[in-house]
């Protein structure tokens, strides 16, 4: 039932609105609304019950193992939520003057400093509101850099074919043309093609390392050299640093700019789609271009640097300073972990991934890159099963839901056929991984003995498999009351 179907004309929640209805005499009729909007008219209990019950229809980290590759579904500590929602933080207006903001700004400054340290970059701006906006900020800085040098020939951005979709989309949004670089059989960037592709038109390259293929790009130093020698800059898609925190720093690999998804590595919640935070870190030469505001410390006082302090900035990407509440959560998380904890994140994210990879291989699954180490994630391909048994990666994914596991990422990266990208994260216990392995084995059995179990899955969820084609063809994007519909 939709919330609108609980609605009844005239029902209202008097405690949630001012008792008096102000008479509005000063706004001329022509500016006034004539018909009430279609908001639900439900009691507080109806709303609470409706949304509580809806919530129960979700899988989530708090209820299920959620090995969704590239998404880092690790435990979101409740303390981070609780502390970011302290009344004092919630009440701070974004225009509060620095005198009334030192507590908040101290957190932001220290977060900036910590992110500098983990990335090995020279400056960090916290404002981008998600990974893709961080990418945009990065691309815009690369562009501003070349422009500042009067180098206007550089119109191309190189992107490996395995890249996350946001990479090419961002490059285009920044006015660049995208050139794809293929991946070799080992999962590394094809260096020969790269060499032949770079040139004076190359503004830069966007790389994810570990790549979205779940492997570490081993020749990164060489790639950096090739691109730099061609006059291009290196962009690091650091959406996920989970496998390298404290193990290797993007700055040391030769990158000029990086964004991080704090909603992955720093475990801020995904919230069913967001919000995230995508801070950017830059090397020396991109410092002047960072998006504002940036937090600065002057003795013991913190303040926001703006366009005045940073005349070459690419500007602002949000009305204030990005997703502040998310940044507070990340700050708390970083302080909870500390130095040692960060090292451990990488160690155990990697241990879990490699363990799961080894055990699934032993269980009869084909790995996309069997000769490689897993990073925080790895890829299983069901190409063989698709051919031999006519079951797809999607069938396996849906069947996993029945067995109480969220599915891994399916059909991404696009270049591996029938793939499952699996990321267990460091916060899952071995027993949980073992149960997942047992479920995967069961599914492999069923694929042979009872393929219909897979093809018709899921069987136990609130709905069975949904008709996506109908959804796109017969668009039904808003509810309409029966009379109108």
């Amino acid at each position, binding site marked *: 039932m939709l919330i609108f179907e609980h609605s009844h004309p005239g029902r209202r*929640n008097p405690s949630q*609105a*001012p008792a*008096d209805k102000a008479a509005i005499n000063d*706004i001329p009729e022509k500016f*006034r609304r004539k018909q009430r*909007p279609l908001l*639900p*008219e439900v009691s*507080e209990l109806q*709303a609470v019950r409706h949304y509580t019950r809806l919530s129960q229809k979700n899988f989530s980290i708090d209820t299920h193992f959620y090995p969704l590759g590239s998404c880092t*579904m690790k435990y979101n500590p409740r303390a981070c939520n609780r*502390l970011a929602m302290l009344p*004092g933080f919630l*009440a*701070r*207006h974004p225009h509060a*003057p620095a*005198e009334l903001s030192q507590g908040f700004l*101290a*957190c932001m400054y220290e977060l900036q400093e*910590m992110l500098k*340290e983990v990335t090995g970059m020279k400056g960090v701006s916290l404002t981008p509101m998600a*990974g893709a*906006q961080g990418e945009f900020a990065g691309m815009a800085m690369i562009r501003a850099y070349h422009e500042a040098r009067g180098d206007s020939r550089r119109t191309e951005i190189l992107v490996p074919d395995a890249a996350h979709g*946001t990479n090419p989309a961002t490059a*285009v949004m920044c006015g660049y043309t995208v050139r794809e670089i293929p991946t070799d059989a080992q999962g590394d960037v094809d260096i020969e093609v790269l060499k032949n592709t770079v040139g004076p038109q190359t503004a830069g390259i966007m790389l994810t390392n570990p790549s979205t293929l779940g492997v570490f790009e*081993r020749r990164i130093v060489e790639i950096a050299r090739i691109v730099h020698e061609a006059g291009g800059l290196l962009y690091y898609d650091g959406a996920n640093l989970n496998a390298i925190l404290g*193990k*290797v720093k993007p700055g040391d690999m030769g990158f000029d700019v990086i964004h991080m*998804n704090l909603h992955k590595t720093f475990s801020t919640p995904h*919230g*069913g*789609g967001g*919000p995230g935070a995508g801070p950017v870190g830059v090397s020396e030469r991109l410092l002047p271009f960072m*998006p504002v505001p940036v937090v600065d410390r002057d003795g013991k006082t913190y303040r926001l640097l703006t366009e005045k302090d940073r005349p070459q900035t690419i*500007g602002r*990407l*949000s009305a204030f300073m990005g997703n*502040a509440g998310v940044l507070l959560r990340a700050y708390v998380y970083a*302080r*909870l*972990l500390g*130095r040692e*904890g960060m090292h451990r994140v990488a160690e*155990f994210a*990697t*241990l879990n991934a*490699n363990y799961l990879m080894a055990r699934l291989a032993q269980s009869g699954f084909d790995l996309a890159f069997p000769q*490689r180490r897993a990073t925080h994630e790895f890829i299983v391909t069901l190409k063989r099963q698709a051919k031999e048994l006519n079951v797809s990666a999607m069938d396996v994914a*849906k069947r996993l*839901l029945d067995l109480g596991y969220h599915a891994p990422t399916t059909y991404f990266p696009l270049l591996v056929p029938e793939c499952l990208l699996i990321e267990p994260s460091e916060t899952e216990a071995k027993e949980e991984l073992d149960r997942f392995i047992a479920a995967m084995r069961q599914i492999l059995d069923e694929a042979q003995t009872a393929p219909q179990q897979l093809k018709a899955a899921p069987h136990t969820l609130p*709905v069975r498999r*949904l008709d*996506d084609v109908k*959804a*796109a063809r017969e*668009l039904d*994007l*808003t509810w309409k009351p029966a009379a109108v519909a």
Partner: protein
Amino acid sequence: MPFIPHTEDDIRQMLAAIGASGIEDLFDEIPPELRAEAALENIPDGMSEMDIARLMTERAEQDGRPLCFAGAGAYDHHIPAAVWEIATRGEFYSSYTPYQAEASQGTLQLLYEYQTMMASLTGMDVSNASLYDGASALAEAVLMAVRANRKSQSKRVLLPSTVHPVYRKVVHAIVRTQNIELIELAYCAECGHTVPEALEKYSGQDIAALVIPQPNFFGVLEEVDALTDWAHRNGALAIGLVNPVSLALLAPPSTWGEKGADIVCGEGQPLGAPLSSGGPYFGFLCCKQEHVRQMPGRIVGRTVDLDGKPGFTLTLQAREQHIRRSKATSNICTNQGLVVTAATIHMSLLGPDGLERVAGACHANTLALIDKLTAIPGVTKLLDRPLFHEAVLQLPRPAGEVLRELAAQRVLGGYDLSEDYPELGHALLICATETRTVDDIEIYANHLRRILKP
């Protein structure tokens, strides 16, 4: 270590299964010369939850919770307790974007309801499932309009200077690399709105879109009918930029002029997001049905399952980066889902009547505030036009100075306009939402009177 469940025993068994002799082995593909440097000397030691809780409590309290009379893009509204108690339930809080529809019907249905609510508030046909914030939503709306306006060859967009100055900066930062020309429209410094005459010089030119803020940054009501009609007469799309709470009282963009706005966007914060230093909020974006395929961001559709039972799923994904990559309508991926979750619950709890009362009370409180403050010698109201819940005052001294003195009394007195609009003099943008009381207003007035005493 926090959050890592592995015992020594687990580690041993796992390494054995992998065939590695130690965890360090697992990193052996990283070039050794890169490894040496990665110590994190400048990261402090980990803290216990107890210690960080204490630190954060101190810092939160340090910021003093001043009495808030600032708006300028972020509004101090009451949020029912139920909103965030439900939104932060683990099932909402810790789930991902609903890619696996069958395991995400909670979030998906909620988003469908959200889309319905936003479409209805704005009067438009469809809504997406959110963008980052109001400013970036405006940028996306501009990009969308340029794509969607097939009649126009140009990439010229008219942007009134009555639009929030930071929004204009954000739009600029985001669209400039795509060769879009943003043309600022002057406003009338007496009335604070975009006079239709300011448009005249662009009449007959190829303009892709006109942005129409309602209310505008000053709280002033624009002549939305005339502006919308001008846009349509000139082949431009009309982009409404609105405060969603105001829509409980003000004409929805769908009714502006003869044909209504084509695209509507704005900041969702007033619908249940705490001030929280400026975020996370959410941007909303609605449009006419004909433009839906140009819309950026996630969209949820209702469909049926194998048994014909209704269910919800992400749809029109062919617009999005994960499918369309470099040809996507936007690079947006993660959006502001949790805040939208809160907003949907918030709107359900308020209902149409509640939202109308909130809007009315904000407006009435701001009028009362204007009355009280302009009773102080030297303080006058600028911009003689109908307004909604925000207003511009003229002070006898620089607003920045006055604000600092008010801050020392824990009053956040408003937003200093002098930097962005020097022509307005010592101008201060003020706002009193429904959360301000008669006493609060009195406190503000008393402090201001004392501060301004000659």
